[in-house]
């Protein structure tokens, strides 16, 4: 075990590691400056459990109704060797697919070791590229790997990589409805960034075998229920923009080694289970350990990160808590009390510059509010 791995294992403690997935990578990429999330994810910490233990349970859960619908829809699409999916691809995307093999990579002769499975996935994918056969192949559950913060994260997507004539298409199955060709914008955006994660990981997996990145199409295929029915329909999603964003954001995530170097030695998020597995650690102590890792809170975290309530509480009195737009409009000043001192003219920056400009704007805004409401800000 390398020094980094040992240090991450120590941060995680005795809990079982959680693996990255496209959702966690997309969330991290949305906020690349957050060391707290980067370290907790790299260490495989169960953030949901840790957040609840410190008294800040995550605000989002999943309804069993939604889970059931998601599972049922995916099973329906993948039934009998994904025959339905093949028909869809043929009709909706006008692909000349006479037939296709279905290859489930979930299991490599009973071997569940990630490294072994990853090697097997790469081998099979690379062989498929070079084979001249006319028939397509659908690879279900390929095990992929992506470099995040200088460290490899394994991804186990519920995903189909469809290969035809040496070209791969990422197929994502989602259970939100596409009604009259339109779907919930947030959900489509999320699906697109997740697909981009898979495109990138697939390209990295093939790169080692000398396969060019263009072999994996940057147009992915989204399979969703059509209108108000449960009939699947396929839509092409161009993820070029998401790929650019993702590459830039991933490059901005600091190296995990460097982040670990800034932590107090011996820092751990271990719950200190007793013989029966019951946690003995004091929640306040655990919270203090978490706070020793820098966070960068933004209100968007409320929809994506299990730690959000703890971080939001920590961000009390900051303009970041009011959202990125508000923070910018308040001249980028970090604290609310500092904003109000500037607005009231109690603090007049001496030097010319951005702060003086922001202060002038805040003073005018305060004067206007006072004039109109008849009450000082």
């Amino acid at each position: 075990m390398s020094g980094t791995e040992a240090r991450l294992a120590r941060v995680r403690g005795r809990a079982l590691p959680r693996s990255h997935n496209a959702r966690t990578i997309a969330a991290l990429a949305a906020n690349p400056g957050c060391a707290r999330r980067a370290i907790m994810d790299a260490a495989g910490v169960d953030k949901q459990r840790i957040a609840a233990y410190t008294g800040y349970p995550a605000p989002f859960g999943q309804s069993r109704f939604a889970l059931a619908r998601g599972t049922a829809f995916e099973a329906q699409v993948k039934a009998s060797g994904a025959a339905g999916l093949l028909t869809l691809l043929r009709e909706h995307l006008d692909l000349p697919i006479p037939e296709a093999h279905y290859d489930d990579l979930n299991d490599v002769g009973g071997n569940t070791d990630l490294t072994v499975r990853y090697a097997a996935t790469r081998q099979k994918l690379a062989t498929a590229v070079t084979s001249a056969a006319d028939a397509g192949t659908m690879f279900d559950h390929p095990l992929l790997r992506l470099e995040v913060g200088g460290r490899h994260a394994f991804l186990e997507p519920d995903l189909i990589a469809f290969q035809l004539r040496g070209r791969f298409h990422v197929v994502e199955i989602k259970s939100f409805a596409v009604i009259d060709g339109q779907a919930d914008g947030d959900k489509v955006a999320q699906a697109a960034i997740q697909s981009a994660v898979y495109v990138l990981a697939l390209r990295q997996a093939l790169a080692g075998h000398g396969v060019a990145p263009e072999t994996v199409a940057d147009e992915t295929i989204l399979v969703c229920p059509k209108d108000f029915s449960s009939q699947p329909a396929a839509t092409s999603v161009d993820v070029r923009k998401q790929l650019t964003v993702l590459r830039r954001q991933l490059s901005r995530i600091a190296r995990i080694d460097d982040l670990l170097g800034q932590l107090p030695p011996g820092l751990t998020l271990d719950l200190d289970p007793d013989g029966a597995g019951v946690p003995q650690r004091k929640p306040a102590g655990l919270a203090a350990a978490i706070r020793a890792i820098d966070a960068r809170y933004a209100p968007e975290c409320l929809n994506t990160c299990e730690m959000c309530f703890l971080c939001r509480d920590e961000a009390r009195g900051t303009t970041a808590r009011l959202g990125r737009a508000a923070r910018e409009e308040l001249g980028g000043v970090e604290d609310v009390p500092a904003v109000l001192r500037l607005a009231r003219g109690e603090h007049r920056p001496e030097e010319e510059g951005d702060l003086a400009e922001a202060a002038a704007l805040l003073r005018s805004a305060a004067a206007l509010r006072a004039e109109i409401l008849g009450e000082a800000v």
Partner: protein
Amino acid sequence: MSTLISLARAVAVERELAQPIRTVRHVHLADRPLVFIPLAMAGEANAPLAAMLGDDPASARLLTVAEPRDRDQRFAFAAELAGIVLGYIENSHAPQLIVPNPAGVTFTRLLGRSTRFRRTSGEWAVPAGVPLLGRWLTFFSERYEHPASSLMVAMTGALTEHWATGQSPVEDLSLGAVLGWVDPPSGMSGAQAAAAAEDPVVCPPAGPATDPTFDNEVLEPRMLAIRTAGLTGDGRAYDRARQAFDEALATQLTPVWAMMWRAVDLLRRVPEAGHVRQRWTDDLDAVAWHAGHIGEGGPPQARRDGAVAAARRLANMERIQEMVAVQRAFDDPLVMAEYRMTGAAFAGEVVHAEPDRVDGSGRRRVLRPRVTLVTSDDVSEQISASELTSPARPSQKARVVSLTAAGDQCRVTVELKGGMGRSLTPVPGSVPAVGERVCYAMVSDSYQNPPALPAPEDTPWTHGGPPPQYTPADDEAREDWS
């Protein structure tokens, strides 16, 4: 958002209470609005689970669907809903639909979409009233997109348009939290009330999404009990299970119902802005037009607009958006303050006035009074070169004739034209007098013509040519809703 509104958010953080960002109410409130709180089943495509609705705070109607995945039950729900909504529209001369949040509008729009193409006869018949309900729900949700309309209101939007909370726009989507900031219960600060409202046990979410823990721990077992009782044919057990299910949903909806009416009261206490009445009259014209269209046997709204209809709609929206923005500024000094911040308006006190000044330089002698005011606002070069209007005298035009800096302030002299009667002596009160506070802005609320667009039958080939006459197709009537 703007610096002014963000500053109000900062003040709200410090005072732990929402701060006003408007001095008057820019949304109309009908005498008896229909409050509609829909709940959807998680994971399904807009499957109704329950709704609480009514136009009287003292009598809420609760509708529930024991098995939202069952087509017949969904249409039974739609039929029952149609009975209430259509009855309300018919009996109310000024109908208005109020839902808790923007997601409630989306739910309503999709419910309209999934019901308006149905037929009440033939093989795929649905109960009477269902397609009509769909057309009206579609109408209301389309009006929501209309910048001048108050026919459909999302309550969180109406509240945050008038108050700034000490939280972010993401958190402002929660009705409980916003209401907590604006109107905390006694003994609590707004911040505390908002924090308390985040506990779904204390304050159930305002829908359409339900609390996942409620789904898993309360709803699912009760749904199962209904299904089991149905299978065993035990009528009494079924009734009991059904009642328990309804009671569970009532625990989620009743607190939201109370919040909605509290919010209506809060908004009513803010005096209505000047231009709201005219916009509401336009709204009622639209209602009458739609009722007439239905009465004449017109088709339901198409799935998608044609090219010309879409372009016309977009251009119209942009024009109306600008018009409404100016109307708001003219109605409300706090909105006009946004223009003053950017140098598009200034305000100050009149220190000198020549109300009887006559300009004799041209062929005809004309009345051209001049007033001088002192302002602390920035008077930009752009504004001194523009034609200006004052909210207090919208039919009068003003032009800057001189500008002198005096310390932190500025002396501006403007020359006035129009709105003073026909003689060479101004009508009393038509020229600002010394001591009066006046505001001049680069924008005016005068009417602008809609943009010229071809008639639908002249759609150019670049835009797909003339669209075919829209006729509802059979497959739309029998579309799956499962």
